[in-house]
């Protein structure tokens, strides 16, 4: 693992592919976050809402994406974390977390971040500004 101090624009952080999305994970996230909207855990409720099945909490996916930066907290921290929710995440989807350094000036590192599913479709995307301090 490289230090962030050394990373150059155009370089990726090591990407992470998650285990297929499972119901128990979403139940855990519901409990830990307090977001008990049943479209994330109960099939009938998702269907009533017009969905083909339960979908992951957008914030679960955003939370997962943050872990690309977790190994670097001794160097600095996430100052800004901006995400647009672009697509739904269903059970058994296989998600990959990506971050590429877009630009850096002094202590600011701006990354383009996204999560793509097994079909290469972006489900969330945005920016992380990591500050070396």
């Amino acid at each position, binding site marked *: 693992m490289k230090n962030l101090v050394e990373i150059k624009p155009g370089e990726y952080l090591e990407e992470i592919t*998650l*285990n297929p999305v499972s119901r128990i*994970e979403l139940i*855990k*996230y519901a*409990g*830990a*976050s*307090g*977001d008990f*909207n049943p*479209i994330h855990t109960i099939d009938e409720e998702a269907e009533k*809402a017009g969905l083909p099945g339960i979908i992951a909490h*957008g*914030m*679960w996916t*955003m*939370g*997962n994406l*943050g*872990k690309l930066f*977790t*190994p670097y*907290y*001794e160097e600095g*921290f*996430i*100052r*800004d*974390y*901006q*995400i*647009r*929710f672009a697509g739904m995440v269903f059970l058994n989807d296989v998600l990959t977390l990506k971050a590429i350094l877009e630009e850096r000036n002094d202590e600011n590192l701006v990354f383009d971040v996204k999560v793509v599913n097994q079909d290469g479709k972006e489900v969330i995307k945005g920016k992380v500004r990591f500050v070396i301090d």
Partner: protein
Amino acid sequence: MYKRFIGKQSNKVKNTVERGMVKRFSEAICDPHPIFIDEEIGKNSKYGQNIAPPTFPRVFEYGEIEDLELPQKGLIHGEETYHYERPLLVGEELYCYSKVKNYFEKQGKNGLMGFFLLKRYGKDSEGNIIFTEEQTVIITEAVRKAMSV
């Protein structure tokens, strides 16, 4: 309609960054890193304490905005932005509240969409802002009709 709520804010609520909650939350986002949960690692880190993941403020309470009721179902979470002055420290107390930043409507392919922008704040006991969170929630026409607002 929600326009009349623009500028309205909630009462402040005291929240604690609880160790057990941080552990459970970091496990739930599949990121149980020692910087979040191992006391010894936290103590020896540059922060002198364990920290919380950046999306952790999800668990806080932000008080009520008078008369504001968003639909319980059918909302679409559009965007989410966090800003931090520093990471949250396990054990610290934060005073949190929320404020309606904007509400506007746009014609979309599924009818008139309402965009509701809420900003949340977390301050330390001296009133310094430690983090903010901006959330855009989309209210579809179908949902709004069902609520008759």
